[in-house]
């Protein structure tokens, strides 16, 4: 921590959050908002004179509310930066000013305000960490009702020499040292009812560690651990587990069904011991809930800002679970630590180093090669209407509507979604590698034989196509008459592709892409949604059943959803008769002869 604070190449911005990210790999423009600290971070010597005179007392967050702090405080003694701060919502302000009077270094700055910092970076590493599971909803363990039921994080503070009790374990209700302690595992993990369904990875070992800490100081303490499985899979882990058992810690298989408080404040735990098959009661002075790990609160906001994907559990989705574990699907953005999934310190450090190496690999040349899958304007067809510039999520297109100067694409800024090409009414934009002809030829080929049996699906590269891959990896079976056409973004799916498909006898068409808010191209799928709505209306007008065109948002992690949608599409296809298809072809051909749809 201190190394990072001192390093000449690292600028540590605390109390700061990323407010906006624009740009693309190699050239991200980042807006950071740094909240006011009201204490001069550079000159504060953390002497603590200010906090002594501050009259305002609040619970201390670092000690999870087990001790108190003042309105002017330092989060913990080793904090980096080593500086006090004022919580202005708590401070009595100018009327008090006691801290201002005693600070010899004149560090108190009541008038400072939030700061906006703009910085250009080449790569981004998302290491937003975790939130511990909130056990309030799991009240069978009595966390909200019984003082002597504490969380594993509260326990950490209670045994920490720097904590509120200077490391002497006491139980909160009567401040007595407990003679027996129970640990309940998997609180918020591995449950279909409450918390996450996944294993939180660290809680088994954390509990084993805690039992060793307790046994070191209190060899006679009775310690019981209630568990489903003990997962001691890492290097050196089994040794610790064995040591814990040999010191007399009892491991009892089964999670308690009920916890009650006895008159002396201790806890009675009812357990179905799944090893012995018996119902047992265990009286313990204190209970510790081994909390699981949840994605940190700001994950979704950042995910939308950066156009990243999440797993159903809410953690960030890596580009490949084995081969690109710290890469995101967006070039130039990497993951490290619990942001990507629950993990321990060693794994977090490993990922941190891996993310750094991946970022260096990207940046070391000082330049990068752009993806050439970008759009291009055919100037002689362009009417300078401005539509392309309006829909471009990257502001990569400039067009002078007033002076009728044709559109121009900044290829470095173009990310290649193809929305401009789909929205251009004059065929003036070529989307390289996904041209009208290339996609139309795929449609023609797939509908050339037995068109009535096929389910034509447009899938975007980042979400729904990846979701289809995920269905494959999971061996989820779905009807074999589905045919996918990959585009980079669902925004590329031009209205004319859909009419063309129906004219060629397609019974049903599915347009699929990232969920709204998850679009890899910021918000290009909004245009997909609008467009599909427009086509639905036209279908209705022309006497074509609008249900035959479906829109589905499927994320890269939703293999199950993908296969379900495919089954629904197949059921829908079965409702389309040969006559209906014939009718549609006739309608569209007639329409085509008179005016282009």
């Amino acid at each position, binding site marked *: 921590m201190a190394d990072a604070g001192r390093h000449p190449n690292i600028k*540590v911005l605390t109390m700061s959050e990323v407010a906006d990210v624009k740009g693309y790999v190699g050239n991200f423009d980042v807006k950071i908002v740094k909240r006011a600290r009201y204490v001069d971070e550079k000159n504060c010597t953390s002497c603590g004179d200010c906090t002594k005179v501050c009259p305002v007392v609040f619970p201390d967050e670092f000690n999870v509310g087990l001790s108190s702090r003042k309105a002017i405080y330092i989060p913990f003694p080793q904090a980096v930066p080593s500086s006090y701060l004022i919580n202005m919502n708590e401070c009595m302000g100018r009327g008090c000013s006691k801290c201002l009077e005693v600070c010899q270094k004149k560090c108190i700055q009541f008038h400072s305000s939030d700061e906006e910092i703009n910085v250009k970076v*080449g790569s981004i590493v998302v290491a937003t960490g975790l939130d511990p599971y909130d056990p309030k909803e799991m009240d069978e363990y009595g966390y909200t009702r019984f003082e002597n039921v504490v969380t594993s994080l509260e326990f950490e503070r209670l045994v920490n020499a720097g904590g509120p009790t200077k490391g002497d374990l006491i139980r909160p209700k009567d401040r007595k040292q407990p003679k027996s302690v129970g640990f309940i595992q998997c609180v918020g993990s591995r449950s279909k009812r409450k918390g996450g369904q996944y294993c939180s990875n660290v809680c088994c070992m954390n509990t084993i560690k805690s039992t060793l800490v307790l046994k070191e100081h209190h060899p006679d303490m009775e310690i019981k651990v209630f568990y489903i499985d003990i997962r001691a899979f890492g290097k050196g882990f089994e040794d610790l587990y064995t040591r814990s058992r040999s010191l007399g810690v009892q491991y009892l298989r089964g999670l308690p069904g009920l916890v009650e408080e006895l008159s002396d404040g201790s806890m009675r735990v009812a357990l179905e011991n799944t090893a012995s098959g018996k119902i047992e009661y265990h009286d313990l002075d204190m209970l510790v809930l081994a909390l699981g790990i949840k994605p940190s609160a700001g994950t979704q906001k950042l995910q939308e800002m950066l156009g990243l994907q999440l797993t159903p559990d809410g953690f960030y989705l890596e580009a490949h679970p084995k081969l690109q574990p710290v890469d995101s699907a967006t070039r130039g953005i990497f993951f490290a630590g619990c942001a990507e999934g629950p993990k321990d310190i060693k794994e977090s450090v490993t990922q941190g180093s891996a993310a750094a190496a991946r970022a260096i690999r990207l940046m070391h040349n000082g330049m990068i090669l752009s993806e050439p899958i970008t759009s291009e304007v055919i100037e002689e067809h362009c009417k300078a209407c401005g539509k392309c510039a309006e829909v471009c999520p990257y502001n990569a297109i400039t067009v002078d509507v007033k002076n009728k100067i044709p559109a121009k694409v900044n290829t470095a800024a173009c990310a290649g979604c193809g929305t401009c090409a789909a929205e251009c009414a004059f065929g003036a934009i070529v989307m390289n590698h996904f041209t009208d002809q290339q996609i139309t030829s795929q449609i023609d080929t797939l509908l050339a034989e037995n068109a009535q049996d096929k389910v034509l699906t447009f899938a975007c590269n980042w979400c729904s196509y990846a979701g*289809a891959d995920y269905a494959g990896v999971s061996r989820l079976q779905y009807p074999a008459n589905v045919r996918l056409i990959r585009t980079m973004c669902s925004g590329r799916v031009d209205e004319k592709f859909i009419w063309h498909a129906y004219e060629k006898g397609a019974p049903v068409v599915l347009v699929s892409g990232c969920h709204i808010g998850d679009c890899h191209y910021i918000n290009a799928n909004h245009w997909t949604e609008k467009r599909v709505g427009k086509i639905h209306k036209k279908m209705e007008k022309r006497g074509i059943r609008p249900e035959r065109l479906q829109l589905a948002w499927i994320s890269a992690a939703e293999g199950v959803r993908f296969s379900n949608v495919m089954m629904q599409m197949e059921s829908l296809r079965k409702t389309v008769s040969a006559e209906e298809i014939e009718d549609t072809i006739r309608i569209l051909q007639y329409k085509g002869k008179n005016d282009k749809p």
Partner: protein
Amino acid sequence: MTTANGAKPSNDSNPRIGVYVCRCGLNIAKTVDCEKVAETAKHIPDVVVSKDITYACSEPGQTEIREDIREHGLDRIVVASCSPRLHEPTFRKMMKQADLNPFMLEMANLREQCSWVHINEPEAATLKAEDLVKMSISRVGLLSPLFPQAIPLTKRTLVIGGGIAGIQTALDLADNGYEVFLVEKNPSIGGVMAQLDKTFPTMDCSI
């Protein structure tokens, strides 16, 4: 049609397509009749070479394709194998090594989106595989070479989150001479780790 820098210009204007149906060991071949798919593709106009191949991505597989490119003057390739999300970069590199533009490649997804999801329907899966390959052939015939552009880059990294993972990332980057902005929403870096007493497996303090 323009050709890639250093690419062999073909003698006639017709595309010369090579089709490689990967068996992926048994991952694809167990369900899809790869030989039949390759045979069907052989009769499509502009397809010069079409064969099934055990592991297209392996070194022998790639060598075979590269040799065919040279021998038959192929100018575009269809690889029908796994998802392009997995091996498109591999085969684009292979194209480059054979002096072809990497974008003259098209992949048909016969594994994740065919053999693995229609395990119990070998006939329907084979039919689908044929369709997917045909679609790829028609598409590959219309592809044009593309050329990446060199764009400048800022040698600086934003690390969001000052827990142990973010700190490690920042230190490794900084020690390698890169500038880092380490952004933390709390008043101190350290994250949840800083709140822990002892940490496993070393049983030492966390800070």
